[in-house]
């Protein structure tokens, strides 16, 4: 597969979650979407490997049908 890590890989998941909430927590949906889009682009560029990003996109889309 692509090498995308989907097993727990964060030393402190609660802290990261809180940081992500704080990034856009007090914004409107539209403003938050803009900030989230910037974050995605920064991370995607860091990852570089298009297969890893494509795999993550697939999993993000597939989670729609999760329940």
């Amino acid at each position, binding site marked *: 597969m692509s090498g995308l890590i989907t097993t727990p890989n964060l030393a402190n998941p609660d802290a990261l979650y809180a940081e992500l909430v704080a990034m856009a927590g007090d914004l409107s949906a*539209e403003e938050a979407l*803009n900030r989230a*889009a910037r974050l995605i*682009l920064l991370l995607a*560029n860091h990852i570089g490997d298009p297969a890893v990003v494509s795999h993550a996109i697939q999993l993000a889309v597939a989670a729609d049908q999760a329940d």
Partner: protein
Amino acid sequence: MATNPILVIGAGPVGLAAALDLAQRGQSVEVLDAGHSVSDGSRAICWAKRTLEIFHRLGLELVPSGITWQRGRVFKGARDLYQFDLQPGGLQQQPAFINLAQADVERALLDQLAGLGVPVRRGHTVVGVAPRDNGVSLEVETADGQLTLDTPWLLACDGARSTIRRCLGLPFKGKVFEDRFLIADVRMAADYPTERWFWFDPPFHPGQSALLHRQPNNIWRIDLQLGWDADPDHERQPAQILPRLHQMLGDRAFELVWASVYTFQCRRIERFAHGRVLFAGDSAHQVSPFGARGANSGIQDIDNLVWKLDRVIRGASPETLLASYDLERIEAADDNIGHSTRSTDFIAPKGPWAQALRGAVLDLAATHAFARPMVNSGRLSQASVYRASPLSSADTGFAAGPKPGMAIPDAPLGDRWLISSLGAGASLVRFGATLPAPDLTGIDVPADSVAWTRFDATPGTAYLVRPDGYVAARSRTPTPDWLATATARAMGASQ
């Protein structure tokens, strides 16, 4: 039937180039066009290097009458976001681009055709098409009544609204972009640099995009995005256009020469070759103008098609060679449609998510280099690549340089240029190789030419180049057998 000329329908840039190429190869050809003059209004202005190379081969020197440019600048709001240079390496005979009105290009083609005595019959409207064995019958309306004409080969260059396509019942499928653009030509004395300027969300036209491009004789092309809700009939009125232009140009005096409101589409027919009817240009494929891929790709169609058709008519190649036109130029059309679609989607993002992503790219691009290549204001036309060409031979042993299926780069050869040294047939470009080139144009690259680097050549390397300047095969250790096999394949011999 054998004595009837080839008929080219449509005296746009594509049909005229086709007729000229055919006539220069000694074929008897005539052009019919429904209209009475060259293109009116303003359509294509940007002519790409590949097109200029093809025009040069056809005897047209347009560079002196056009505006030469190679740099673009992209703005977000009032901020200068970044610049690009389309030809940083230099040392090529033709510039990256010139700007010149489509009507002037058509006039130059007509002059060449007149010199060769090729008839261009205006006021001839094709109204019916009947393919027959080894040819086509046409119904043509003229001021003097209706004619029936027979031709062994019909080139359908009758544009985006092609009658011939409709007569053959061929669907023209694709995507409409739900947006409207005001395209205006203005005359004004201005000293902006000769660059393509594109704005996202400019202060003079908030929330939309704008494009400014220089043409000869103090004419400037301006594109203003209007949004899908704009009423095209209302937006076409000078009373509506002039204030928009004043917003952009400030107190500078200008004269409105021409303007219209467009919606753009990207679409194509499924196949371009239908027996003796061959489609080329906008009749076969249509793109949005961001990237200047319309007329430029149509001229590349002709460059690909005409040498093949000439060989087939002479009996030098089997008729199946024309299947490679279909394959190669459909690949090119899909590439052009892909690029124009992505550019148009970036310029006119639809829905909250596409808008957020586009905004994110523009916000990041100001400070972060990584985001700049994602900013898409049009990816400008280049020579297409034929990745799966049946005319190409297997490629081994090269790390760089043009692969089989790619157009060769130009380079100076002493006092000549490589591309303009190519023959009307296939050529063998030799880098210190001694291989004889029977029936080919042999070109020996001098030791000090930058072509060695551009072709990743080592002493002994040879490239077999098709009549359209595309690589068919290359080898570091070429032998007469290699050359014979590769040439036969490139000329469509059955494998």
